[in-house]
């Protein structure tokens, strides 16, 4: 954040630019991404009037106008809380970005755990199904029977 006190506005205790019923501050996008600024603005739309301008490349100027007559201290506090909210939004954003994979994993694991477990009756029905009764490799033929068949075919073996 950089103050705009060089534009001839009232002095602010916190370094913001104060006007009659407005307070302004500048936010560097390398510190406060636009998504975070939007997040803070969204929360303040009901509380005050918010207007954004491009102060210079990479810098967003935020002007907050009180809905009711406000004192300089009140405006100072409004802007201070707004900038605090911007910081909270930046933290929230970075945390969300750094834990995306982890959250996806936990969601998938929760969905797998929520899937219904197979019932015993279903497993028994599967065992009795026709597919399992087919035995193309003759695995179900007893070993003695297999050996008897082999000795008949090859009496010298």
């Amino acid at each position: 954040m950089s103050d705009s006190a060089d534009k001839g506005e009232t002095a602010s205790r916190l370094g913001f630019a104060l006007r009659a019923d407005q307070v302004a501050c500048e936010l560097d996008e390398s510190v406060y991404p636009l998504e975070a600024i939007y997040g803070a603005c969204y929360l303040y739309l009901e509380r005050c009037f918010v207007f954004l301008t491009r102060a210079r490349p990479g810098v967003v100027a935020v002007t907050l106008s009180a809905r009711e007559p406000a004192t300089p201290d009140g405006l100072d506090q409004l802007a201070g809380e707004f900038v605090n909210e911007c910081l909270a939004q930046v933290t929230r954003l970075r945390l969300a970005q750094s834990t995306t994979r982890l959250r996806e994993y936990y969601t998938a694991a929760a969905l797998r755990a929520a899937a219904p477990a197979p019932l015993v009756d279903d497993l028994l029905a599967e065992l009795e199904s026709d597919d399992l009764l087919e035995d193309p490799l003759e695995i179900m033929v007893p070993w003695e029977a297999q050996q008897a068949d082999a000795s008949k075919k090859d009496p010298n073996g």
Partner: protein
Amino acid sequence: MAERLVFDRSLYLPEAVEAAAAAYGDYARIEVTASGEATEVLIADVAELDPQMVARAFANHVLHETILRVRQSARPENA
């Protein structure tokens, strides 16, 4: 008395300005002009209301519409 607002395109979506202009059409005469890197809005003929207050409320509406649209387009199913 008319109020003039300039919405930077890097901060406000032009379609959000159009949506707000449509919403405020019953309260004032809204003229939207697209220029190079900004969308300019002229708010005039405000009936029985403070023109500056209407302009500020209009800007709030544009910001609200912009944020909703940006968030909508950022959803994974729209990526």
